[in-house]
């Protein structure tokens, strides 16, 4: 009851200020307001969704959606844009957490299974969707990219976008549900690998499209750029992770503050050096976890506690930025495509699981972790729209709608899978065991 009362007073304060603000009110100075409102109200809504056995982050997204510019407009579009300044920090932190979760010793035992399931899912999905788009293009509400070859190129680019996963959302679901176990590890590895592979696929597909459709001149620079993006990101992240490891070892104070600073640094440097933030932060986390593992556990506890506010703001902003008009424009097609993607992912993971001979994870759970899509997909779609203003812009609208659907539905389905696998809350149990055993000694 007190929580409801608290939420009521927060909403009253925001509404009063927005409704009765003088003409001199400055929306550009609304970031702190939006931040505070999102932190308290989204957190309370997240608690409510948890009571309904849904992921907390669905509550954060729902808050953004409800209070965002399309519905209540308590968070205006300018506020939503301003809130997105936290995106770099959030993505960096989430990927860093993912790196901390990837213990190479554990992964080595499952490497084969991961490669097979991931490979079959990604390659299978990409190929099948390319064919489907190539065949169906004349009936879709998109401008024609040209002849059959151009259509094939456009189909490959679109398939690359539709296949892509969201490491950020998957990792966030795992982190907020405190999950630990084979399913969490497998899904984490597949989405991270998927991110890597799809960047390559997408770059190659774009190169092909530029050649086939006659967009901006294609040359080898895109491949050089791609190599830099992949190798450079990993190397830069590893270097930063190494320095952070030294800090942990020899100083080890104010970890939360230093870590947040590190994530900001990674975000700024990645943008400036044209690196992939997810990869560099992931590499940094991997180095810390696998090289300075003894301090890594201490860090992990601190990080997981401090991740909550970042996750809340990140997903609330994502909810507020969901473009409902895109869903209204192209909703049926997006729904159909989402259903097709879901069926294909399910089939592909089932085949992959069988081929890998995996027995400890039911094959009907793995696909549930691969549904989510989010920011990276939108970023790639924007590139397509810029490069190919005709059909590319239409594809972007489709992807915006599709991402909107997946970001809402994906976490719910994944959490349900983690629950069925009995992995929710296992991280805390493991930490308690470690703590007890260390005290015993």
């Amino acid at each position, binding site marked *: 009851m*007190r*929580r409801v*009362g*608290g*939420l*009521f*007073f*927060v909403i*009253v*304060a*925001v509404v*009063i*200020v927005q409704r*009765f*603000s*003088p*003409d*001199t*009110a*400055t*929306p550009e*100075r*609304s*970031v*702190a*307001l*939006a*931040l*505070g*409102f*999102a*932190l*308290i109200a989204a*957190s309370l809504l997240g*608690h409510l969704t948890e009571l309904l056995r849904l992921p907390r982050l669905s509550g954060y997204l729902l808050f953004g959606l409800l209070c965002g510019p399309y519905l209540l407009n308590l968070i205006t579009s300018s506020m939503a844009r*301003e809130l997105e*300044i936290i995106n770099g920090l959030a993505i960096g932190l989430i990927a860093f957490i993912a790196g901390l979760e990837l213990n190479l010793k554990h992964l080595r035992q499952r490497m084969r299974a991961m490669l097979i399931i991931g490979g079959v899912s990604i390659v299978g999905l990409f190929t099948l969707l390319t064919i489907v788009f190539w065949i169906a293009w004349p009936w879709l509400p998109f401008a024609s990219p040209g002849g059959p070859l151009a259509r094939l190129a456009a189909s490959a680019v679109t398939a690359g976008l539709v296949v892509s996963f969201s490491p950020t959302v998957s990792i966030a679901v795992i982190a907020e549900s405190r999950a630990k176990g084979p399913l969490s590890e497998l899904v984490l590895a597949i989405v991270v690998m998927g991110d890597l592979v799809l960047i390559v696929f997408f770059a190659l597909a774009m190169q092909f499209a530029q050649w086939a459709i006659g967009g901006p001149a294609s040359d080898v620079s895109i491949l050089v750029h791609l190599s830099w993006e992949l190798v450079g990101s990993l190397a830069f992240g590893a270097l930063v992770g190494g320095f952070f490891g030294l800090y942990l070892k020899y100083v080890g*104070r*104010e970890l939360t*503050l230093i870590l947040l600073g590190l994530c900001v640094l990674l975000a700024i440097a990645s943008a400036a050096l044209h690196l992939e933030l997810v990869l560099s932060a992931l590499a940094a986390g991997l180095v810390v976890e696998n090289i300075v593992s003894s301090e890594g556990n201490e860090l992990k506890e601190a990080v997981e*506690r*401090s991740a*909550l*506010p970042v996750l*809340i703001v990140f997903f609330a902003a994502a909810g507020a930025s969901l473009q409902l008009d895109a869903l209204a424009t192209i909703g049926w097609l997006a729904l159909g495509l989402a259903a097709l993607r879901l069926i294909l992912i399910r089939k592909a993971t089932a085949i992959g699981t069988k081929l890998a001979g995996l027995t400890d994870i039911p094959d009907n759970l793995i696909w549930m972790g691969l549904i989510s899509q989010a920011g990276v997909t939108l970023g790639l779609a924007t590139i397509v729209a810029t490069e190919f203003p005709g059909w590319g812009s239409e594809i972007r609208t489709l992807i915006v709608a599709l991402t909107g659907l997946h970001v809402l539905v994906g976490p719910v389905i994944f959490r349900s899978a983690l629950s069925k696998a009995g992995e929710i809350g296992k991280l805390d149990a493991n930490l308690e065991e470690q703590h007890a055993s260390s005290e015993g000694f």
Partner: protein
Amino acid sequence: MTQLPFTNPSNKKLSGVGTSTATQMSNPRGGVVLPKRIAALGLRASAMPSMIYVLVGFILGPQLLDILSSEILGHLDPAVSIGLAALGVFVGLGLGSHHARTTRWALLAATIGAVITAAVIAIAMYTLFQFWELDLPSSTAIFAFSIGICGCASAAASLGYDIRPHKHIAARIAELEDVPLIILGGLAVTLASAGIDPFGQMRLAIIASLAISIAGWLLFERARSDAERAVFVTGAIALLGGLPAFIGASPLVSGVVAGLVWVYIPGSADRIIASDLRKLQQPLVPLLLIVAGASIQLNPLLLWITVPLVLFRLSGKLIASTAAARIVGAPAAFVGTVLVPPGAIGIAIALNIQQVLGTGDTILVSSIIMAAVASEILAVALLTVKEEWFN
């Protein structure tokens, strides 16, 4: 001035800007060995961090390395609002938790002292500005009013001694001086934001702050984990910073209002916020000082403002010390010793006014910082602490 929230690893409180001062040393009998002179400019280890933050800000800022470019400083605006609200909450908590009888007289003396000093500075500077016809970022009257308020802050923490309110009421005057300054500063902020109805803006911000403080009271004690409580505390402080910033009012005033509500409302909201805020202050208060340092713009106008400001401030402080000393019955020289070293709250108010002016012209913050440095040097040169004042 309220003990500013710098803590060293051993949890020993350090002083704020302008904090001068002497390191406290305990003797074997548990008393305090008093240094004979007030140190300045962070030359003592205990005062180093605050001045270092301002210096670091200046070095990183647009004037030198340009790492903290004007664009980045713009992005830090929300953090500044939140930091100001956090400072305000500390002042509110401090005001509410003091012994009532001591506080009443000290507050009266502090208010009279602050008003006298601010009036001396503002009137004198206004006259000078009119005479010189300087190109200022706002109207001459508002700028003079702002500089009067920001320029008169004092650093109680400058003493660094065991300041027990019943014994050292003079130090309490300097601490409580923050309250009238924040209120007057709130008025200056709304005036500078070009509001037609500054009192209406302040009223709106206070109503919103009351709602947030009630929300905080309802939520803090009901958090299910430390992490969730930290989210509620951070959210409440962000709202206390963001709501007034949105309408061009002062986050410091909102913070004081909320701090007072949390002290007087039943329950443990005040203890929770004090404990959790201590974790937030670590990044926020240094950030305020770094941003302030980075905002310094060196130009000839700065010299024209700083030199008279320092002199008028010193004159105002001496008059104010005499008046305040009569009210509380303390030696006027001691009250002067406490009031002359400059305080960080003036820099905070100046930052706030600069935010709402939004002109990119940072002459107000620059001159307040320069005046703080010069006043600190003057304090060292002119003032002596006598041991008998503490007995």
